[in-house]
């Protein structure tokens, strides 16, 4: 009778975070991934300069995720007691890093796009006869 049931996973996460935070995070993730994909599509590839900048922010995001985890579990990383703890710490840090990198890449991509469009519009306006 054992079956995979994502509803259990969902129910526990909603209890853990409350529906508002849970759905805000889902929306943020969807926004981040969607925008990231859109930016790559519009720019026809990854901008390596922007990516490096975002990865640096991502490193800070990884540490932010670790801090958040330490805060909610009222503990610290000196409490790691075995390999699985280091694995978990790595996963949390990695999750924070990847999430922040994608979000910041998407945000910078959006910002750059808007600036670029604004410049085109301004250029159109200042074009002789425009």
């Amino acid at each position, binding site marked *: 009778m*054992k079956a*995979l*049931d994502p509803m*259990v996973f969902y129910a526990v996460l909603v*209890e853990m975070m409350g529906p508002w935070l849970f759905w805000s995070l889902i929306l943020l993730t969807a926004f981040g991934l969607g925008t990231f994909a859109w930016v790559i599509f519009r720019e026809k590839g990854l901008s390596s300069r922007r990516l490096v900048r975002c990865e640096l922010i991502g490193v800070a995001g990884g540490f932010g995720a670790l801090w958040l985890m330490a805060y909610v579990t009222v*503990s610290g990383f000196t409490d790691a*007691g*075995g390999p699985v703890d280091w694995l*978990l710490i790595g996963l949390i840090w990695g999750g924070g890093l990847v999430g922040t990198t994608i979000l910041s890449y998407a945000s910078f991509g959006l910002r750059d796009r808007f600036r670029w469009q604004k410049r085109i519009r301004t250029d159109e306006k200042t074009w002789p006869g425009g």
Partner: protein
Amino acid sequence: MTFSERKESSKEKNLQSNSCKDCSRRDFLKLFPLLAGTALCMHAQQSEASEPTKTKARIVIAGAGAAGLAAAAQLAKRLDGAEIVLCDARKEHYYQPGFTLVAAGLKPPGYTVSATADYIPPGVKWIPESIVEFDPAGNRVVTDKGQIVRYDFLIVATGLKLDFAGITGMDPALIGKNGLGCVYAGPDAAYATWKAISDFADKGGVGLFGRPKTEMKCAGAPIKHTFITDDHLRRRGNRGKAEIIYAAHNKTLFSIPIVSEKVRMLYEDRGVDIRHEHVLTAIDPARRRATFATPTGNAEIGYDFINVIPPMRAPDVVRKSPLAWRDGPFAADGWMEVDKGTLRHKRFANVFGVGDVAGVPKGKTAASVKWQVPVAVDHLVATIAGTTPELIYTGYTSCPLITRLGRAMLVEFDYKDNLVPSFPGVIAPLEELWITWVMKTIALKPTYIAMLRGKA
């Protein structure tokens, strides 16, 4: 009786000998959804994929704690048309595993308190009255307001009674004063215990810990508090000023031999002085002295802080009813006479006992409730539907045994004293780990609440 329970119960006896795959401990993975990728989505053992069973059965659930609410939620899902009634006078719901964190100074008392009304499933009627009489021969219960409630099926989930009167001189009103602690007595008592522990951690002296001789809920809790207090003393640089004594009721420290040995090693490492075969019988709160019954007579120990854990028994209403065991190890304290595999009463086939009140070996934890309730519900529903029940309870229970602030051991075991780790090779059961602490602090409560709602 209008149902074919008796016929079914004989079928169940045959089933019982088969070990049940569905009750596999690995299902427990879903208790920790944060940690185990897809495994965490393992669904419970309820056979709830099928259509709800149509019935007009009247089902009374005595007690709206962890087990009663979980049973109500599962029955409401699996039955269509049943009249389900919950009886419990208590308006607050206590998340009791959180008492440990409150008494460790990590959470406020409110962390453990919510409203029973929030978990009553739609369609289930709640009578906010206590049951004062069980009449299983007459298929009825009587409440403290004189209401008679008749049933076709009864689920008893009244939890247990903390028998403070079993310790001469013990007065719950004194908890928090004169170095007297008691983690078990409720959210405020847990908080008052924290104040007393904190005071002790500042001043040092003799800290006295132990457990009762009776069956008890969460047998790991007395041990956890020994470690937690030790850690608070160390963090404040006062461990050298304190002596910690653990009074064990018998020759072991935990009912599972391998865990007992591990705790002994950890106690040795932390400098905890173990006194075996010491059963607390009396305290003098003003003089701060505790009396223990030992094989060689009474022994008195003076203390600066004591964590009193009173004897635990079935609530009087169960103990004095025909539902209690009449002989054997569970008779003296009146635990309910149920089959340990099916949770069905051995003499009244339309009655089930789940949670702390059940007279089964071990298993007085919320984790046991998690695995007992689907079994009892499955057998009850199968009786109504005239089908063969599928589930058997193997005695699975678990305890995140905190060994210091920030680390715990995930101890999982069954009736046979086997360790049954949910994450073999990943989370070693006898290893002090942060990941287990993470589960205890953030994953356990939401999973427990989801269980009350019938969603986990």
